[in-house]
């Protein structure tokens, strides 16, 4: 993980410098020397020190060896699942919570290759309706209504 640590260290140095500079403007607004800038600037100093230590470890070869790593096919599967979730957040606002959730669950289970259409439909329906009912009738917490003005 030498390369990763080296890059992370550089990134952290840049971040700490930016945080130190950006928070210095807060000192101009208040008169107290322990104002809003104090804590972020203190943290940025420590982040800078840790970044240097990370880089030094990487150069000396003391970075931990790479353990379990990401499975490429699994990563693609995960990325697509996140995309489906983003789509769910968008279509939920159009078609409402319960229907949107049913569609999301059914699509995701199908994508993950869950066998059995009946099982998929039943699980999606039960899960989305149960949560909808709990939030609507038991907790009385509003859920997205969709463009037709009802949450179903």
């Amino acid at each position, binding site marked *: 993980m030498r390369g990763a640590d080296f890059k992370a260290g550089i990134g952290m140095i840049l971040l700490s410098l930016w945080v130190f500079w950006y928070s210095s403007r807060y000192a101009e607004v208040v008169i107290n020397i322990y104002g*809003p800038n104090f804590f*972020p600037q203190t*943290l940025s100093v420590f982040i800078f020190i840790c970044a240097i230590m990370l880089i030094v470890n990487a150069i000396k070869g*003391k970075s931990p060896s790479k353990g379990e790593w990401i499975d490429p096919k699994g990563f693609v599967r995960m990325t697509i699942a*996140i995309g489906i979730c983003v789509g769910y957040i968008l279509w939920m*606002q159009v078609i409402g919570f319960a229907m949107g959730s049913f569609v999301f669950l059914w699509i995701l289970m199908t994508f*993950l290759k869950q066998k059995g259409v009946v099982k998929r439909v039943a699980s999606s329906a039960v899960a989305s309706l149960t949560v909808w009912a709990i939030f609507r009738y038991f907790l009385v917490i509003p859920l997205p209504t969709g463009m037709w003005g009802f949450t179903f």
Partner: protein
Amino acid sequence: MDFELLFDAFATVMLDPMNFFFVFIGITAGIIVGALPGLTATMGCALLIPFTFGLETVQGILMLIGIFSGGIYGGSISAILIRTPGTPAAAATLLDGYPLCQKGLAGKAIGVSTVASFCGGTISALIMTFISPQIAKIGLKFGPPEFFALAFFGLGIIITISGRSLLRGIISGLFGLLITTIGYDPLSGLPRFTFGSRDLLGGVTFIPALIGLFGYAQVFRNIEKMQLLPAVRSKVEHIFPKLSEIRSILKTLVKSSLIGTFVGSIPGTGGDIAAFVAYSEAKRTSKNPELFGTGILEGVAAPEAGNNGAVGGAMIPMLTLGVPGDAVTAVLLGALTIHGLQPGPMLFRDHLDVVYPIFSGMIMAQFVLLLVGLAGAKVFARIINIDRKILTPIIFFLCVVGSYSMQFSFFDVGLSLVIGIIAYFMEYYEYPASPILLALILGPMAEQNLRRSLMIAHGNPLIFFTRPICLFFLVTAVFTMVTSYRRQKRMIASEDSI
């Protein structure tokens, strides 16, 4: 300790059927979450917190205590049946639990595990009830320097025990603290790092961050791996242990419960450490230590009493000082804050109407756990066979709902998703997530009290070193970090020599 108030609280909690209902729901949900490998008690609490928003404070907290206790116990079911602990706290249980299952005694193992969890949880709840008010009295003497030192102590401990690398733990903690600076400055009210966004004025909300760190990240890992678990093939029969069997392990139960309570009360430790300490102590003092690992009841009783003993133990620093004992109590602390309560010494001064019901609810939860565990063992065993391709999307769905329901904001959902993606990658680069969670809770306390202390002392940092309680916490935190660093160096040196 006001005994009259305590008995009143017992009567109120136990005589109200709705309290029993919520504890029952919490215990059942916790056992299910705990029994399923890939889900943790922390995740269960995080996902179910939104379901407590519409409840009264005490009922919500009782449900979460139920999830906590049930979650820690539930991990033993999969540890015994399929040699895969449902939660890290059950890792020691499989050492003798699975061999017992192989001998055809799965039901007996689960029965003993249930009784042991009940014993550990009850003893620790009683200790918590009687010791917490005394610790809170000491806490009332704390000023800003002591609260800063306490926050530093809590962060220091969690950093040292998270992950293999101290440096990576510190970096995680610092990033967590940096995240807490987003939003209104607590002392001057000035917005910081909001970049003109109204959604960020309140800072990064705790629940979405929590769901991102422990909910989404785990879901992403599950989807990436999509591993199938071995099916439960063992028959779960003869669950109720005989009285003679319980008598034979009684000494182990009590000792392990006390060990678990003590270990759990140290901030930063948790059920997993308590379980292993209890197991190794039981083995060390046993007349037949060579039998441990071959499938004996003592080998199941010790870790289960230990890990459930840690439940009450972890609540002690959380309730009395506002420093969580482990990740799950960190979630409970967040839940109390959401319900308008600030854990710490002031809770005992101003909200005894909540504190005593928590104590009595905790004790009631152990009885409910015993009933549900023994009666529902066969059902919970079958739940392990639920198809992951159905379960994982449902958990994903609950993460979205949970992160939305805090402020009815899709911004929180997006933020939670982003945090989840970051946490997913963090694990592969060996940056622990627990320090970020603790930093989100302790960061504001650390910043406010640090600045107040320096203002009081006109900038003189010696204020932190001239007050004994403050000095104690600071020295202990530094000492723990130094010993952890030396231990890691030794581990790395021994790995290199192999």
